[in-house]
């Protein structure tokens, strides 16, 4: 084949990073999963035949919400520090993120304990209980998964692993964490505002 007859192939050949595409696809499939639980919650508002009803037992989880939402900010600070190789700052903000996440989980635990033992609402009590525990629980499960990865990163960093070589993966983890946060905004709106 004469080279003059050959059209030059694009010199610039850039494609999106496969990890980026993968994590976005994962988040989209998760959104699809959450939507169904949200739809179920909305569908069953006011359909419980017996109490307790949301307005009797639900209180705004103010502290939990503040903690989780601000952890989205602290993880950005941590990422930023990592990109500039400020390792002390990274460790500090990363630890703050973990603490904020743990406070959220603790608050959820307290809320559930209160609901189950004092207000006698379980997953089997009525459709409110069924939808409440499954939607909030699904979200909490995602927080736990995110927390596990946050802890892994923290532990390996403290043991001297050069985490700055893994900025891509840290970024993906932070996207996932933002996603979990965004889901909480939806869950909060649906459960504690619309649902009451």
């Amino acid at each position, binding site marked *: *084949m*004469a080279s003059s*007859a*050959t*059209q030059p*192939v*694009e010199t610039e*050949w850039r*494609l*999106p*990073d*496969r*990890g980026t*595409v*993968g994590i976005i*696809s*994962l988040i*989209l*499939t*998760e959104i*699809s*999963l959450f*939507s*169904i*639980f949200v739809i*179920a919650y909305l*569908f*069953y508002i006011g*359909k*419980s*035949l*017996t109490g307790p009803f949301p307005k009797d037992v639900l209180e705004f989880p103010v502290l939990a919400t503040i903690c989780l939402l601000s952890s989205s900010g602290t993880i950005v600070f941590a990422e930023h520090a990592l990109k500039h190789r400020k390792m002390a700052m990274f460790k500090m903000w990363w630890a703050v993120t973990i603490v904020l996440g743990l406070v959220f989980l603790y608050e959820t635990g307290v809320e559930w304990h209160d609901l189950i033992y004092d207000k006698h609402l379980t*997953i*089997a009590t*009525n*459709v409110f*209980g*069924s*939808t409440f*525990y*499954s939607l909030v629980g699904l979200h909490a499960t995602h927080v736990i998964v995110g927390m596990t990865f946050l802890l892994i990163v923290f532990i390996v960093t403290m043991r001297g692993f050069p985490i700055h070589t893994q900025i891509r993966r840290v970024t993906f983890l932070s996207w996932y964490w933002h996603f979990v946060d965004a889901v909480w905004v939806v869950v909060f709106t649906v459960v504690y505002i619309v649902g009451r």
Partner: protein
Amino acid sequence: MATVDYPLEKSRRQREFSLSEALYSWVATVDHKRLGLMYMTSAIIFFLIAGVMAMVIRAQLIVPENHVVGPQTFNRLFTMHGTTMVFLVGMPIIAGMSNYLIPLMIGARDMAFPRLNAFGYWIFLFGGILLYFSYLGANGLFGAGSAPDVGWFAYAPLTERAFSRGTSTDYWILGILVSGIGSIVSAINVIATTLSMRCKGMKLSRMPLFVWVMVVDAWMVILALPPLTAGQVMLLFDRYLGANFFNTQAGGSAVLWQHFFWIFGHPEVYILIFPAFATVSEVVPVFSRKPIFGRQAMVGAVVAIGFISFGVWAHHMFAVGMAPISNIFFATASFLVAVPTGVKIFNWLATIWGGKIRFATPMLFCVAFIFQFLIAGLTGVMLAVTPFDWQLTDSYFVVAHFHYTLTGSFLFGVFAAIYYWFPKATGKMLSETIGKWHFWLLVIGFHLTFDPQHILGILGMPRRVYTYAPGRGWEPWNMISSIGAAIQAIAIICFAWNVIRALIKGERAGDDPWDAWTLEWTTTSPPPEYNYETDPEVRSSRPLWDLKHPEDPDWKYE
């Protein structure tokens, strides 16, 4: 490609370890081609099992008041037949074909996430085995049930604790849920591979239609499967934690399950038909010696079908008593799907029109696909008419309709794909003679089985009945239908014989037996582990045409 000369001693040692090593190399593989073949082989095994179930079903229905199997067994048979065909045949065939072909077609070394790929396969297989273990394990503590018997769509409240004792329904839930994880993982992999791994010059506008269709398919999988998973999790909560999602006595809604199931279930039928679309879009041009007619329109149509298919699910629920406005909405949306589908059929026909047609076996299957898919689409439009559906829902007319899509269209497309790409994957040709026997017997058997079922439905025969009384005019049609099923079985035996024969003493295929135009035919058959010695570079949508015709390459016109 160059053979490596091993010293004598080493080669003898190799022979000694070969069996365990070969086994190990397959179990531990992360190679997309091997995983693709493993998906296909598993799917074919499940296909044979579910096919035998269909044979028993047809044997039971061949005459009225027959006693081949009892009602309980019959319920399990149609449940397992449907569940297997959709989740353990259709889904792994999608994963298998995508895995094997997409990296080759886009000039990549492997999928984007090879280890995730292997995980997807094994978790799928585990789900399948879990489902079938129900035959042994589902007796459980309650002494009730063996395999699931709630139908492939497992309508609530039939699946609730009160009505489905024992653990058979739990095997259905968990088996499907677990294998669904495999499908999602493999779909994410397909998306990342197509978007990020294409070789130099392989722009989206040049990407083979096969890859286009399969990547849209993968998008549909990641968005459509989670609703089923969510519904199944709720069902598990109902069954094990006493939740009330589908418990009508505590304010729960059985109809909600239907919505969740069909939000998944309708896109799922398009998910299943897409591999056939993908195959036909590659095979028809090659065997008509013409580029595909209206490439952009084909891509547009596939994307449109992907979108619209998420807004039509409740056409499966007209009989449930929805508001008239919902009925009108879902009927209209369902008619809309006919438009892009019509575009596709038109473009395939326009590609064949005036072409230099070679009726080799892959092309035969494609032509039959086009006609049978057209009829499937037409009965689909009929069923989308709400009052018509009220009359014929849950009758054999519906059975005939969806077997036209899944057997007459999906299966024919898959056979076209197997005949077309088998030489690439194995280096051996399938016999054209046996292939034609296979094809014609399958066409005849298919039409004898399913054409009469339309009439049975119109005559009022409900689906899922294990037997029927004589004297309603159903006997001759059922008889013909069962004979047709037997002929299909013979066709499948021809296929199995053809594959085994080809593997043992098939003619050598060479790199490019069909004189095709896509990238996978430039490498050896079977391709080496690394696919391509040098990274391919692409200048048009038919890179192999450009190589073969340097004086008149495609890129001059694109």
